[in-house]
């Protein structure tokens, strides 16, 4: 089987056009990330702040202490009182302090209190709903209380890289294009080269060959996805000049203030990579199914574009997205708020439900491909050309 997977992988993916497309898209991705850095990074916009920030970071960054806060405010308040805070003015130091230290420090310092408040309210709600007999709402609030009960941000880290990296989606679009390009031909090729008949007359040529194609495709999609997600991470880190902040909790970034997760940013990055890969795999298997069903490349190609396009549009139009794999591709939205799905009275976090749905879809698509592959030739109406 491993030999078959190797040959299927070589046959369909280790081809010059596919490899060239991957390299081209990686360059395009790097170009786009460079654009993000130029447009959004504070230090790219005002380069002289970087040196100043690096000088001040040992004083105010790292573990948050009362002393550091007092020192920072003692330095910042007089500067602020002196005048305006516009860039280029002589009071720029105050603006830099405000942007890079005061606001993040205030957010971090107050987060513990805010989280505790949320946990307390949630517990009160849980008791209230318990008394009212609404078990689901009570369970939901208990879970929220558990999530927020012991949250704190104990370090002030440089998280700018993560802030922008976790909002970056362009590579998803590139990966989807590569998935369509790579997979659309997998089964169609056998029909176009008249090899399908030959395959069907060999012991391993039916379902096992299809299984090898399926697994080779899974490897391809996973490899391409991870390559791009990893490239994104490394490129962001290199351009922003730092991989710091990986140990901070995810809610150290304001966007994830109310996130249901409490893991570190680095772990969240790995989770996001996994979820995005799962989303890509669902689309990949759908493309593969279309390739299995059609006889020429054009139909699965157009079908795949339409399918993925409509999923993206549906997501953009705020239609219910728990069954839409795009929600996994843009997974940060799933972690922006605490959101539950009522599953027979049990509150299940939306991201877990989305992941479960995606895995179910993967199983269904794979089973459909294998079933069709086992039966298609016997049911095909005619041979190749002649009667």
């Amino acid at each position, binding site marked *: 089987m491993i*030999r*078959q997977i190797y*040959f299927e992988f*070589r*046959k369909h993916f*280790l*081809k010059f056009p596919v490899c060239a497309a991957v390299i081209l898209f990686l360059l395009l991705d790097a170009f786009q990330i460079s654009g993000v850095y130029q447009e959004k990074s504070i230090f790219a916009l005002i380069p002289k702040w970087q040196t100043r920030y690096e000088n001040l970071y040992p004083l105010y960054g790292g573990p948050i202490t009362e002393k550091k806060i007092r020192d920072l405010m003692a330095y910042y308040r007089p500067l602020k009182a002196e005048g305006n805070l516009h860039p280029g003015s002589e009071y720029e130091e105050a603006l830099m302090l405000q942007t890079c230290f005061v606001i993040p420090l205030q957010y971090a310092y107050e987060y513990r209190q805010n989280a505790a408040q949320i946990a307390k309210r949630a517990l009160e709600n849980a008791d209230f709903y318990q008394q009212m007999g609404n078990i689901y709402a009570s369970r939901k609030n208990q879970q929220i209380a558990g999530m927020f009960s012991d949250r704190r941000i104990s370090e002030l880290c440089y998280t700018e890289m993560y802030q922008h990296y976790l909002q970056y989606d362009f590579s998803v679009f590139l990966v989807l294009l590569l998935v369509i390009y790579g997979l659309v031909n997998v089964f169609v*090729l056998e029909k*176009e*080269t*008249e*090899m399908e*008949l*030959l*395959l*069907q*007359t*060999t*012991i*391993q*040529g039916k379902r096992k*060959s299809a299984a090898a194609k399926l697994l080779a495709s899974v490897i391809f999609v996973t490899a391409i996805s991870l390559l791009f997600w990893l490239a994104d991470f490394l490129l962001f880190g290199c351009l922003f000049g730092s991989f710091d902040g990986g140990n901070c909790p995810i809610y150290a970034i304001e966007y994830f203030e109310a996130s249901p997760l409490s893991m570190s940013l680095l772990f969240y990055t790995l989770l996001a990579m996994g979820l995005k890969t799962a989303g890509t795999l669902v689309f990949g298997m759908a493309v593969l199914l279309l390739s299995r069903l059609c006889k020429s490349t054009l139909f699965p190609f157009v079908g795949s574009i339409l399918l993925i396009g409509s999923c993206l549009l549906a997501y953009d139009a705020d239609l219910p997205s728990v069954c839409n794999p795009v929600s996994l591709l843009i997974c940060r939205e799933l972690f922006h708020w605490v959101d539950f799905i009522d599953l027979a009275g049990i509150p299940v976090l939306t991201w877990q439900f989305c992941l479960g749905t995606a895995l179910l879809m993967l199983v269904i698509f794979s089973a459909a491909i294998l079933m069709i592959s086992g039966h298609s*030739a*016997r*049911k*095909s*109406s*005619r*041979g*190749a*050309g*002649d*009667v």
Partner: protein
Amino acid sequence: MKTEFQNVSKYYGRKCVLNQFTATLEHGVYGLLGPNGAGKTTLINIFIGILQKSSGSLLIDGQDVEKLGTEFLNHIGYLPQYPQFYKNFTVEDFMAYICGLKDIPKTIGRRRTEELLEMVNLTEHRRKKIGALSGGMRQRLGIAQAMLNRPDILILDEPTAGLDPQERIRFRNLISRFSADRIVLLATHIVPDVEFIANEVLLLKDGILLKQARPGVLTQSIADKVWELTLPDPQMTKQFDAMRISSMIHDADGVHLRMVCENCPDEKASPALPNLEDVFLYYCSEDKNDTTNLF
């Protein structure tokens, strides 16, 4: 090994494309001859198990093929019509790939690949990409892959279509070589391919088996139906347009016609020795004038 087709029929809706096909094949080359649309590929597709028959049965050494299941696939080697294979695979890779599909262990597969590539004269091209092979080389690779599992039955669907004469002869010789101790079913509408190597010919038209006999017997069956005639004026050929003309050669003496018909077409016509092409023409072509009823 003995293969028996017993009243095998195939219908698409009400249309019958194979009608009560009954034949017995033992060792040797069997030429499945018929015009386009005769049902050759349908018969082959039923034989190799990728198309279900509407009725009838197919027996291998007295055992129903359907009961043999996938085990039957170990007995057959198949070369489809117009295969292109995979252009980015080398000859060696492709053979290794087929070994995997046929469940042949790696070491045995490697040895057989070497032997077969030697036999089909592709050893020096084994590292070439398939995309860089000529049509003839590709067909030789095709027969080599079909032989990998040492099949008892070798099925070749239009294997010489598109080959130049030299390659065609080479390929015919290969088929002959591989036919020892096995059944070779060679479907084609190229008559000389069958004429030179087939032990028996199965003549198929409109899904019906017209004849199954040795080439010599078939030619003998139309011994008094082939005529040659030389006409001094090319204009005179018009009166024979409706007849089955197997060849027409223009030269300084006029036009030399070779015709297949029941009765002498002209008083100047002389009888000629029939060949398999004449047989094909006699049984398979539509004749507008000849009222011979074949059935």
